[in-house]
């Protein structure tokens, strides 16, 4: 989980890494955009070998939700 959050935080340019906790609702962050979403999807596909549809990412509220989704697909 910690490693995933580290990888997740690397996809953001301006947001501080301390913001990212398992309970963080990342859609509400100011820097969030569809481009950040694309970068996250690409990171997940590259590092975890799981392809997530953009709609599934939209349905994830917190980082923990996304982590659980990846775990269930692996």
């Amino acid at each position: 989980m910690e490693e995933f959050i580290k990888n997740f935080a690397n996809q953001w340019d301006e947001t501080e890494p301390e913001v990212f906790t398992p309970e963080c609702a990342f859609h509400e962050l100011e820097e969030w955009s569809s481009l950040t979403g694309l970068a996250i999807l690409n990171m997940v596909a590259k590092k975890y070998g799981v392809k997530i549809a953009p709609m599934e990412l939209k349905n994830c509220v917190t980082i923990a939700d996304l982590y659980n989704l990846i775990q269930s697909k692996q």
Partner: protein
Amino acid sequence: MKEYKVQEWTKIPYFNHDKKLTKTIQCSSQSRGLSPLAFAWRKLRNTILYKRAFMCPLNGWRVKMHRKRGVTIGDNVYIGMRCVLDNAYPEYLHIEDNVSLAGGVTLIAHANPYPHFQNIVESAAAPIVIKTGAWVGENATILRGVTIGENAIVSAGTIVDKDVPDYSMAKGNPMKIVAEYSALMDN
């Protein structure tokens, strides 16, 4: 798609555009290696086809008309309305299979400045290559000598003045590569 030969950078010699029409036709035909009559016929035909294709509501007809003008176009290509595919040098445009150009996209394969700019910009025509599966957004402008890579995305309104790599998204003015998504594509 059939094999095609990518055109090379070609210098455009300068001539006074303000002279008689016959002089213009003579100079333009010389720089393209055509006889004046052949050039005049081609120019007339291309201008009519280009004007028809500009506002034609059917994609199939638009693509056919652009092919007739001399643009290399592959299979399953979409070219939107109001697209400007260089009217002076259409043979320098190469569009491969499954490419989508949205409405109002401009492809300019040459720059022909007056001679007092000769030390700043080279007066030349250069090929534009849009590779398989690329997607160009509304009102983007693509300048000479640019190659857009396979499955690349050019965002709406972008002015593309340098190459876009495969599987990446170009956005903004000045253009930046903002995303890379090779891991997400099914291949």
